[in-house]
């Protein structure tokens, strides 16, 4: 279980507890947090669960697997702190994680 803070582009914060084994994307979708679309349902086939993770946490997350950066090329305004939230698996280690939403997903 990890407490995750989802921060919308307008600054509105949502703090929820997400079960281990779910992804950060699922944590948002299951809790009706706006800003993450996840059109493809988590198969790393779209880029609509794009989030930014600040440096302190970015380096602590499991590294990107092959293909995630290719998908991120197609996201809205990606940068070096971009991740696809469907590829971040929640574990106890992620307790206290903050993620920032882009202005929009498409």
């Amino acid at each position, binding site marked *: 279980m990890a407490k995750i803070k989802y921060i919308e582009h307008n600054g509105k914060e949502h703090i929820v507890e997400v079960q281990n084994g779910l992804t950060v994307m699922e944590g948002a979708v299951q809790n009706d947090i706006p800003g993450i*679309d996840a*059109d*493809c*349902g988590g*198969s790393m*086939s*779209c*880029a*609509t669960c794009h989030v930014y993770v600040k440096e302190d946490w970015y380096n602590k997350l499991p590294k990107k697997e092959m293909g995630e*950066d*290719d998908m991120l*090329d*197609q996201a*809205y*305004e*990606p*940068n*070096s702190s971009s991740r696809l939230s469907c590829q971040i698996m929640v574990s106890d280690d992620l307790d206290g994680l903050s993620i920032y939403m882009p202005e929009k997903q*498409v």
Partner: protein
Amino acid sequence: MIKTDVVIIGAGPTGLFCAHQLGIIGLKCEIVDNLDKIGGQCIELYPDKPIYDIPAVPECTGEELTNNLIKQIKPFNFNFHLNDRVQELRKENESWIVKTTNSKEFNTPNVVIAGGVGSFEPRKFPTKSAEKFDGKTVLYSIKDKSIFKDKAVAIFGGGDSALDWAIELSSTSKVSLIHRRDEFRGAPASVQKIKELSEKNKINLYTKYSIKDVKGNGSLEEVEIKSEEGESKTLKADYVLGFFGLIMQLGPIAEWGLNLDKKTIPVNTENFETNKKGIFAIGDICNYPGKLKLILSGFHEGALAARGCFKYARPNEKYRFEFTTASNTIKDRLGVK
């Protein structure tokens, strides 16, 4: 005006199998899809990725699945209307009049929406200033490459489309290729070629840059690019091309009064009809308690929706359930003895 029993919106696996079920029970259908090819997400997003959860098929790719579904409906000779999108849906007496972007019109008692997450459209530049040049000098696909001859062309993207066009146009145009990181997802041979062309100054390569602004009085003159550190450069450009892949947009479906809930259409689970008589929704786009976004669920939904279509297409006939193994009528429809 094309008169038919059913119009299917979306040529993905769900739409294709629904067409099969319609053919089996003796109904005609017309299939419309915005993409230029059949297969939907399977062919556009993951043609090479293996799928492991199609019943009785331990492993197949999106492309193989699509090809098999096409083969399965071949006996029925249904028409596909590709590169076209349903724009308008209107009720006229007991029929639906369906109009497409290419001005095709259908008259049908049934519409089956198998639209996935919407239609695929090119992802556009995030910069507001690019909008006024959209379709003229800011482009997301190329129809006539001769317009770029001797022009300055700025190409954005790191996939095959961006690389292929940069290579192709570099012989006749002044090409700049701009990509947000220094790795490319295009084919390794193309990446190699781009590096060679860059070393020979045939292409100006800018990696770790993205678009900031496009400028021009009346016509496009220059494009400003920025690095993540905030450094910016201005490049002369007659044309700006963006190749960022495709995104899925619900589009006009949202305006048909179908009580959308989070981009999905609520349906009943008896025949997958929506709140409107004769409009059905199946596959990823439909929503009901327990809905799973699996291809196999789409197949089931399509089979039941097809039976739902029967009562409006043949109001004076009684639908009779038959097995393909035993029915001579079905065997005739399939053209098998």
